């Protein structure tokens, strides 16, 4: 991994320890890594056991690349950046998404990670299905799909 961005959609467990080691740069004193993990409940659905993620696969990586590009435009200090999302069936506690950024100082890493995960959640074509003891249904609290341009012009 020599390139500056590590952007991946995968069915296997996300290699977060490797991501964390990869994202460190000599010129950067700060690394922030956010992980979205499978939770055992969702609003009033108790006992969620698994999540199944599906994606409009050919367009996930391009969509994450657009976010990466915009993040670098907003925070030119970014050293390395990683966006990884998993699809398929995940059990409680497993990591579904990882966002990691290195920057010289900490404020930029924290800001860039927050903006990136917020944007990823509204612009990347991925859906989750929640599977609990007595049923299964699509994730609550879904967000109408936005174009990066829509979100890209607000904030910061």
């Amino acid at each position: 991994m020599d390139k500056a961005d590590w952007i991946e959609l995968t069915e296997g467990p996300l290699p977060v320890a490797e991501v964390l080691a990869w994202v460190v740069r000599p010129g950067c004193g700060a690394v922030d890594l956010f992980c979205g993990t499978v939770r055992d409940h969702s609003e009033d659905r108790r006992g969620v056991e698994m999540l199944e993620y599906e994606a409009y696969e050919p367009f996930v990586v391009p969509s994450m690349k657009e976010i990466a590009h915009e993040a670098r435009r907003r925070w030119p200090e970014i050293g390395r950046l990683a966006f990884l999302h998993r699809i398929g069936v995940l059990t409680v506690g497993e990591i579904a998404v990882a966002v990691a950024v290195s920057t010289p100082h900490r404020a930029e890493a924290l800001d860039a990670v927050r903006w990136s995960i917020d944007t990823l959640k509204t612009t990347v074509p991925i859906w989750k299905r929640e599977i609990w003891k007595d049923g299964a249904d699509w994730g609550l609290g879904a967000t109408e799909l936005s174009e990066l341009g829509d979100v890209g012009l607000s904030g910061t």
Partner: protein
Amino acid sequence: MATVLFFGPARDAAGARSAIVEGTCVGEVVAATVTRFGEQFAQLLPTCRVWLNGDPATPDAPVGIEDEIAVLPPVSGG
């Protein structure tokens, strides 16, 4: 005529992952899906975005058999 892909809740509502649907532009194809896939799908459609070959589509964009229209309900990744 174009291939239409349905994702997440739209797939359940349509009862299909994909379908070949008649129409010469995006708007015509989408209108035809409403007729064909019934009430539950019709109710979901206003919350969905429609992409043509991976980009947001306008209703008047012409389509042919090679084109892929995607019906994308509210997303829930992460």
